[in-house]
């Protein structure tokens, strides 16, 4: 499988009034052709910041280091013009808030056509026709009529479909979906996930799926990267990760999620004790050590690196026994 997106040692820091804060620490990821990689973690673990940094979408206060290669082209340090020509064309985004991510004063058709006109130089009419096709592609009924609607006339699920239509308008190589279903009702979520799955199959788009919802991961992902406190702590193929989590944090995360067939009487949901460390702290240790039930002396003395291989884990004392399902 060809690697489409290759992220190596990506670090992001923010300049603030209280000094420099680290938000992402040496994150490395790979996404293959038409592969869905899920990046999972709690709020504030750095997964969204990593996603935004890929195409240079962070504010001026952010400093990004490391390497992001899209089809072999380096994006970190690329000039603004190059980045603009890649955004929306090679690498497209879908955001969490469909209610506010569309501009309220333009029709959805206009907003989709804008991408086509900017990147492909389609005429007004051609862009509009293509917008209708795209709306059909993402499953919006009576697309010919809806193309002239304003965002406030559409429901949340429909708006998120419009966002997806906009994102795939130029047939991008990678689609970055940042919590695409979090703000939606559960019944609507399934529909959006279906659209993403179908796009991957029909267009061969690679997807980076940022989420904290393990249900969504199980539903859509091929591979999973688990992030904890700015770092990737484990990556594996999805079934492998769910059945044999090696990092104690991953195991804890799975234990904290409800699963089918388990009863509340016999299987209590477990919480992970303690709090996520604040961003400013940079101890020379495993960031999870304080909360880890399996912590050893080594864990507070030096930090673990990811092991090589298909199932990679950054832990001095990984879980070896499979989780009973």
């Amino acid at each position, binding site marked *: 499988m060809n690697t489409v997106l290759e992220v190596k040692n990506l670090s992001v820091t923010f300049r603030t009034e209280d000094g420099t804060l680290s938000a992402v620490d040496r994150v490395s990821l790979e996404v293959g052709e038409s592969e869905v990689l899920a990046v999972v973690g709690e709020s504030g673990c750095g997964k969204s910041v990593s996603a935004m940094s890929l195409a240079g*979408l962070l504010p001026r206060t952010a400093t990004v280091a490391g390497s992001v290669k899209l089809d072999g082209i380096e994006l970190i340090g690329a000039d603004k013009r190059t980045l603009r020509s890649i955004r*929306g064309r090679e690498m497209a985004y879908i955001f969490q808030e469909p209610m506010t991510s569309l501009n309220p004063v333009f029709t959805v058709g206009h907003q989709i056509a804008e991408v086509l006109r900017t990147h492909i130089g389609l005429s007004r009419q051609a862009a509009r026709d293509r917008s209708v096709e795209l709306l059909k592609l993402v499953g919006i009924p009576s697309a010919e009529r809806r193309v002239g609607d304003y965002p406030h006339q559409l429901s949340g699920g429909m708006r998120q479909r419009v966002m997806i239509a906009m994102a795939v308008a130029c047939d991008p190589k990678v689609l970055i979906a940042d919590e695409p279903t979090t703000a939606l009702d559960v019944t609507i979520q399934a529909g959006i996930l279906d659209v993403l799955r179908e796009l991957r199959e029909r267009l061969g788009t690679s997807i980076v799926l940022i989420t904290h919802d393990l249900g969504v991961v199980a539903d859509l992902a091929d591979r999973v990267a688990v992030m904890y406190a700015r770092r990737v702590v484990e990556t594996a193929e999805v079934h492998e990760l769910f059945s044999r989590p090696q990092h104690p944090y991953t195991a804890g995360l799975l234990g904290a999620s409800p699963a089918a067939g388990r009863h509340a009487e016999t299987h209590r949901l477990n919480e992970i004790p303690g709090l996520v460390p604040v961003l400013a702290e940079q101890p020379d240790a495993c960031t999870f050590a304080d909360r880890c039930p399996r912590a050893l002396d080594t864990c507070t003395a030096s930090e673990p690196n990811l092991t090589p291989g298909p199932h990679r884990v950054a832990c001095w004392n990984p879980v070896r026994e499979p989780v009973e399902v």
Partner: protein
Amino acid sequence: MRRYLLGRLWQSIVTLILATIVVFVGVRALPGDPALALAGEDRDPESLRAIREQYGLDDSLLVQFWQFVSHAARGDLGQSIRTGESVTTMIANALPVTIELSVLAILVASVLGVGAGVVAAVRRGRPAEWAANALALLGLSVPNFWLGLMAILYLSVALGLFPASGFVPFFTDPVGNLHHLILPALILGTGLAAVIMRQTRSSMLDALSADYIRTAEAKGLSPRAVIGRHALRNSLIVVVTIVGLQLGALISGAVVTERIFALPGFGKLTVDAVFQRDYPVIQAVVLVTAAAYILINLLVDLLYSVIDPRIRVRGDA
């Protein structure tokens, strides 16, 4: 949408009726016999009787009010007690000057205010923002009639760049007309420009941190499209509202500006009428201003709904 418009129309009509009553009662509240006041210096019994006749001052208040309204509705606002000229004609002659001055001032203020506001928001925390903020604060604080005096003193008299006073009708000499009006329009527009700038800056800051701006950036649009199209379009809605709200201040400012630059407009008519105790003219001027204010605000509301689709098209989601 239609219900909203009908509601607005109805409100405007109610306000207009109330305003008419206020003006009517105001004139009856003139000290002493209104006929004496209306007669001015011409106080022989014969003309007093004529005035009583003309204004129906011996009728009941209700009849008088009806007379007043029905005359006004037919465009008959009475005669000036100084010149005997029809007040309607006097206003019709003066109004175009004021309208042109105000429209120019709004244009100048919008261009300067929106431009400076966008710069201040985009160049956040840089010298450009600081300068724009300071200018806006000055624009709010400087008395514009004094600024007008200074402009005449230094730009017109000392440097001879602009005519210090006077007016040429647009259709006689368009260039001369603009030459005469550009300085007054700039002066009248300063305060409005400052208000527009501050509002544009704050609504641009809101817009720039909005999710849809992040979307526009993620789409790979140029900064010009992101700022000029996506952010500004949303901010302009606020600017239209401001112009509507500031209309009263603009009308007041126009009166003073015309006085300073000796423009033969509505403001000059008003001030002259007060000093000549020309009550029919005062009454008409107040009534016409109120009606114009109400009408323009109705138009602003319509314009508002044209710019903002959330008002124009009701959501069916």
